[in-house]
C-alpha cells in the first residue's frame, strides 16, 4: 500500500524491540467478542482505479461551468484566480495543524491576522475572528453571543433571512432558554421588525442583501435596537456585495455573520465554506472561535499568536463561548489570498461587474411574458415572479441544459406564496450568451 512505509521486516524488528509477539497482542485490551469482525468491503486500489471510480461519479454531475448557470441562494459561482488554488495547495499551508506552536506557525498566523483585518474592513466592524464553519453556523454563533452579551432571552429573526440560516439558528436554540420570535417569510418586503423589539430582546437578525435579493437601509433598525439595548446581527450570504454597498458596520450592525465562500472558494456542492464573524471591539471577549493577535518574541520581533484562548473550549470547557475547535482555516486562507489579489480596486470592480450583469439580466427577463422582476433593489440576485410554479420551470429548463436559478419553494416548502418565485443570480462569470440562453428557454417554457 503506497502510503504505508513499514515493510514486513520492519514490523518484525519493531515487534522484537517492543517485546511483543504480534501486532494482535497490542490489541489485547479489546474485548474478545469485538475483535476482528468480517467486513464485506473492497481491498486497496491504485491511483488509476480510484481515479476511474471517482471520475465516473463526477461525470454524472452537471458542472455549473458547463451550462448557462444562474443559481445563488447563499452559494454564488465566482471565478477564483489560478494563483489562489496554487498557493493553498502548498504543503506548508495544506498539511499543517492549528497554529498552537507560534514559533513554527507564523505563516498561518500572519495569514489569519490579515484575514481578520480584511473581514473587519469589508464588514465595517472593529474585529473579526479566524473563521467559523459557514455562514449559517456563524449566524447561530452570533445569536448565542448576543444572548451572552445582553443576558436577555428573546431573539427576533427576520422573514427575509436565508431559511437555512434560520433553521440552523432555530435548531441551536431548541434546548436553550432563549425564545425565538420567528417572522413569517417576508415575500413582499413589508415586515417591520423595529416594532417588535421589547426590553427582553437580545437581538434582531436580518440579512443584507436579504434572501429575496433586496437591499434595505438598516440604519433605522440599528437605532431601534440600540435604543432598546438590543444588538443588530446582520447576516450576509454574498460578501461580494460589500464591495458595492455601504457596510453593515456603517449602518450600525453590532455583529456580522457572513458566508465568505464567494471569495476564493469553489461551489463544491455546499462545503467546505467559510463563516465570517465580525463584531465591535467591546464584545471581543464574548466572541466565539479562534483569534490571531499581534505579539512580540523574546528578541522583541513582531509576530502573531492565537490569543484570548480563555474564551475557548480547551481552557473553559463547558463555560466556553463556543465548542468550535477545527474551523475553516484553509478556506479562510483562500479568501485572504483572493481578496489580496483583488485589492481595493479589484474588489470594487468585481462588485460593480456583478451588479451590472444582474441588472442586464433583470432587464432581459422582465420582458418575458409570464415573468416579472419582483425587486425594486438588488445586488447580483433578484426574485423573478412566474405565472406558474417555479420548481417545474427549473426542472424543464434543466432538461434543456439551462440551470435557471433556485425555486424559492425548495427552501420554503409548504409556503404557497413561494411557489411562483424564482431566485436568479448573475456574477462576473455570466456571459451575454448565457443570458440570451436563459431568456430564450424561459420564453419557450412560459409559452
Amino acid at each position: 500500500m503506497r502510503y504505508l512505509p513499514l515493510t514486513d521486516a520492519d514490523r518484525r524488528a519493531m515487534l522484537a524491540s517492543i517485546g511483543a509477539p504480534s501486532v494482535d497482542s497490542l490489541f489485547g485490551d479489546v474485548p474478545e467478542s469485538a475483535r476482528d469482525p468480517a467486513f464485506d468491503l473492497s481491498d486497496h486500489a491504485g491511483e488509476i482505479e480510484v481515479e476511474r471510480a471517482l471520475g465516473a461519479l463526477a461525470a454524472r454531475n452537471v458542472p455549473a461551468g458547463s451550462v448557462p448557470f444562474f443559481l445563488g441562494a447563499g452559494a454564488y459561482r465566482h471565478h477564483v484566480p489560478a494563483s489562489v488554488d496554487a498557493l493553498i495547495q502548498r504543503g506548508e499551508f495544506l498539511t499543517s495543524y492549528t497554529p498552537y506552536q507560534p514559533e513554527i506557525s507564523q505563516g498561518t498566523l500572519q495569514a489569519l491576522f490579515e484575514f481578520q483585518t480584511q473581514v473587519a474592513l469589508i464588514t465595517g466592524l472593529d474585529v473579526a475572528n479566524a473563521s467559523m464553519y459557514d455562514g449559517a453556523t456563524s449566524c447561530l454563533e452570533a445569536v448565542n453571543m448576543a444572548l451572552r452579551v445582553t443576558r436577555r432571552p428573546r431573539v427576533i429573526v427576520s422573514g427575509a433571512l436565508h431559511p437555512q440560516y434560520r433553521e440552523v439558528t432555530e435548531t441551536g436554540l431548541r434546548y436553550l432558554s432563549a425564545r425565538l420570535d420567528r417572522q413569517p417569510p417576508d415575500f413582499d418586503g413589508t415586515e417591520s421588525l423595529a416594532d417588535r423589539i421589547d426590553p427582553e430582546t437580545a437581538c434582531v437578525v436580518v440579512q443584507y442583501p436579504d434572501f429575496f435579493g433586496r437591499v434595505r437601509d438598516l440604519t433605522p433598525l440599528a437605532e431601534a435596537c440600540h435604543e432598546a439595548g438590543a444588538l443588530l446581527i446582520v447576516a450576509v450570504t454574498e460578501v461580494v456585495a460589500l464591495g458595492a454597498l455601504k457596510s453593515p458596520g456603517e449602518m450600525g450592525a453590532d455583529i456580522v455573520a457572513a458566508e465568505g465562500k464567494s471569495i476564493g472558494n469553489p461551489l463544491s456542492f455546499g462545503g467546505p465554506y467559510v463563516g465570517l464573524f465580525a463584531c465591535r471591539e467591546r464584545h471581543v471577549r464574548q466572541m466565539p472561535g479562534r483569534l490571531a493577535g499581534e505579539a512580540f518574541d523574546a528578541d522583541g520581533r513582531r509576530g502573531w499568536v492565537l490569543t484570548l484562548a480563555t474564551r475557548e473550549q480547551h481552557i473553559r470547557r463547558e463555560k466556553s463561548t463556543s465548542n468550535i475547535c477545527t474551523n475553516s482555516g484553509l478556506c479562510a486562507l483562500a479568501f485572504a489570498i483572493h481578496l489580496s489579489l483583488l485589492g481595493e480596486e479589484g474588489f470594487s470592480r468585481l462588485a460593480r461587474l456583478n451588479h451590472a450583469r444582474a441588472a442586464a439580466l433583470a432587464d432581459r427577463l422582465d420582458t418575458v411574458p409570464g415573468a416579472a422582476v419582483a425587486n425594486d433593489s438588488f445586488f447580483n440576485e433578484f426574485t423573478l415572479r412566474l405565472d406558474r410554479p417555479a420548481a417545474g420551470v427549473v426542472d424543464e429548463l434543466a432538461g434543456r441544459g439551462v440551470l435557471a436559478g433556485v425555486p424559492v419553494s425548495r427552501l420554503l416548502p409548504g409556503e404557497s406564496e413561494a411557489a411562483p418565485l424564482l431566485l436568479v443570480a448573475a456574477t462576473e462569470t455570466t456571459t451575454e450568451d448565457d443570458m440570451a440562453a436563459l431568456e430564450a428557454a424561459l420564453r419557450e417554457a412560459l409559452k
Partner: protein
Amino acid sequence: MSAPTEAIRHRGLRFEEPLIFEQGADGRTGVDLPDPPEMRDRLGGLAREAPIGLPGLSEPQVVRHFTRLSQKNYAIDTGLYPLGSCTMKHNPRLNEKLARLPGFADIHPLQPESTIQGALALMDRLAGWLKALTGMPALALSPAAGAHGEWTGLMTIRSAHEAAGDPRKRVLVPDSAHGTNPASAAMCGYEVAAVPLNGRGRVDLEALKSALGDDVAAFMLTNPNTCGLFEDEILEQADAVHEAGAYFYCDGANFNAIVGRVRPGDLGIDCMHLNLHKTFSTPHGGGGPGSGPVSLCAALAPYAPVPYVVEGPDGFRLVETDPSGPAFGRVKGFHGQMGMFVRALAYILSHGIDGLRQASSDAVLNANYISAGLADLMSLPYEGPCMHEVLFDDAFLKDTGVTTLDLAKAMIDEGYHPATIYFPLVVHGALLLEPTETESRESLDHLIATLRRIVERALSGDADAFHAAPGEAPRRRFDETAAARRPVLRWRPPATEDRAAE
C-alpha cells in the same frame, strides 16, 4: 502604506515578510476584470461611498507574499508531526486532485437532483463505508468538524429522550475528555458531570455506575481514550449506561487506531462522530476545514438532522426538510463538507479494507515502538501497550528545572513539531506523541534518538538553554500574556498616515 523597509532583514532562505497592508499601492490590482458599464444602479440608494482600505497588490506580489508566509510553517510535508490526538498523517495528493474535478468542485448545492446524481451517489457510498466500519446502521453526514459532530450527536440523543417523554438533564464526561465534549454538551442545554479515571488511565467503572441515574442522558467516552489506551471495560460501561436508560456517545477522534479491527457498534456505542480530517486524512489546512459525520444506532436514527440522502426508483434524492417528522433540525447550511467527502472516499478506496486495517495496525505498532524506545528515559504514567499514541507525564523532569513546555520547544530546534502538551489534563505535564502509520521505521528511529538526546541534556542540567528554546525557528518564544492583556487583532493604518488621509 509602505513597509518600514529599512527594518526588514532577510537571512538566507529566511525571509522577513511585512503584512499585505504594509505593501500595497493605490491603483494596483492582481485581477484583471472588464470595465463595468455605466448604468443607473439598483442598490436602493446604498452604494458604498467610503473606501474600504484594502491594499492594492499585483499577482506576483501576492504570490511571493503567501509563498514566503508558507515557508514559516512546519507541516507534515516537511517533517514528522507527532501531535497527539490530532492524527497528522500523510495527505495524499490524489485526493486533492479528485476534489477539484469540475463534477465535484463546480456543482451548486441547490441544483436539480437530476444534475447531481453522482454527488449523491458519492455521499451514499461514503456513508456505506462509514456505517460498515463503525458497525452502525445510520449516519448523519452534514456536521462540519468533530465538535460539530459532538453537538449533532448529543442533539440527536436529546431529541430521542424528549420524544420518549423522558427529558434528561445531565451528560457524564470523563476527566480526560477533550474540551469540546463538555462544551458541546452545554450547547445542548445539558449540565456536565465529570467521571474520574482509575489508576490504569481508564474510566473508573464503579464511579461511572454511581454517577449514572435517571437524569443522565448520555455518557460521552473517547475510545481509544485521550491517554492513548483502549477502554478495556467498555462492554461493562455500555451495560451500565444502557441499564440507566442513557445513550453511549463515543468521541471518535481516535478511531484511526482501530479502523478495520474493531467496530464501535459491537462495543455498545450508540452514537459516534468521525473526524474525516483525522482518521481519513483530509488535510488539516492549518486549522480546518474538517468534517464530522455521526454514526447512529437504530434507536437514534429517526432523529438524525436533515439533510440526508435516500435512494428511490428514480435515483438518489435529498431530504432537506422534515417539518413534521422526528428529525431534530438542521446543523449547517446545505449538505455538509462535500470537498472532504470526496477526499475521504478517495482515501478509503485507495486503502481498501485491507489497507485500512494495516494502517491502524501500523499506527499502533509505531506508537508502541516509540514508547519502547523512550520508556527507560521518560516516564509512562500507565503500563501496558498503548494504542496509536503514547502518553508521558513529566515525572522524569523532576528537579531538572525543565518543563514539558521547554521540552516541546527544544523539539522545534531539532527539526520537529512538538507533541501535544498538557493534554489530557489528567496526568501532570502531559506529553502525547502520535506518530501515525505514515512514518517509516527510519523516521521513528530518528525521532527516538533525538528525543533521547534532548532528555539526556535536560537530565544533565542544561535548564537555561531549554528556557531559551527555540532559537532556530523564525521566531523565539512570544510574550503571550502581554498579547492577551492588550489584544491587537487586526492591522490599523499608522496614526499619522491616518490623520494625513483625512
